[in-house]
């Protein structure tokens, strides 16, 4: 991992930025949901915090400064109730999946494998929120339904 180049660092930073956005977004999602859906949102929020912390540690070990979270994020559409909150959750997961797919394009084999494996949890969470699968998770067309 010591020979990791700028492209690899940039890929990790992009994944971290997506995780920051997801942590923020799930704050909005969770505020709109209750019961089982609220519990699911809380669990997913925690999962993104854990992934964020892991990426920060990876970047620090590589001698890079992890990108910071923005104070606020623009939502892709108005979120005013449970239905739009569920759509936002799926949208956030698609964004994270796409960011990890970016890591798969790097030449470092370890990071490539890490990115591919890291796509699976957000893709499965997107499935849970959306209720259906997509043919090409992480590819730009996957999030068009969000």
């Amino acid at each position, binding site marked *: 991992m010591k020979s990791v180049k700028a492209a690899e660092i940039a890929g990790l930073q992009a994944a971290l930025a997506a995780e920051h956005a997801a942590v923020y977004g799930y704050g909005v999602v969770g505020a709109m949901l209750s019961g089982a859906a609220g519990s699911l949102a809380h669990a997913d929020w925690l999962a993104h915090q854990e992934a964020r912390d892991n990426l920060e540690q990876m970047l620090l070990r590589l001698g890079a400064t992890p990108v910071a979270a923005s104070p606020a994020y623009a939502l892709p559409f108005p979120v005013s109730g449970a239905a739009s909150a569920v759509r936002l959750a799926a949208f956030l997961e698609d964004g994270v999946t796409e960011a990890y797919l970016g890591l798969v394009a790097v030449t470092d084999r370890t990071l490539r494998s890490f990115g591919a*494996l890291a796509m699976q949890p957000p893709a499965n969470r997107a499935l849970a929120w959306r209720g259906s*699968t997509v043919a090409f*998770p*992480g590819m730009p067309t996957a999030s068009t339904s969000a």
Partner: protein
Amino acid sequence: MLAASPTTLPLFLALSACKGPAVLSGPAPVSAQTQTLLHAVTAELNLIWMYNKTMAAYSGLGPALAPLLAEHQAHLGRLSARVVEPPGKKVPGTATARPAIDATAAGALAQLRDAEQAAVGVLLNRLAGASPSLAQLYASIATSEATHVTTLTSRISGSRTGS
């Protein structure tokens, strides 16, 4: 048709014994990356065959399995489009593995789930030798198939609890 004259034939024979460029030799060897891509195409064909057979045997599973089958057909289309057909090597068009479908619907679902899980592992093992864009395609398809595992597992659990 050209006929070899008594004067040119010895010259031709002499030239063909030379160690020059093998113009008339067999097809060039297929690159490792293309070989891997052809294997990925065959793997999708095998999964599609299993889905079709399962849906034919258990029509009640059709509504649940049809979307997953459609995604495999999309995978096949995207993978096949990446193949630059090597000279003398045909792009696979039929399944090579045709296992017997389980005698129960739940068993057949488990069979599909296991095949999907195996496909995920194989695709992830193909990342290292692939070009960046092909690696991304393999990773995306592997992720899709991982969500199929989740969907099928949930379906199996539902059928066991009667939901």
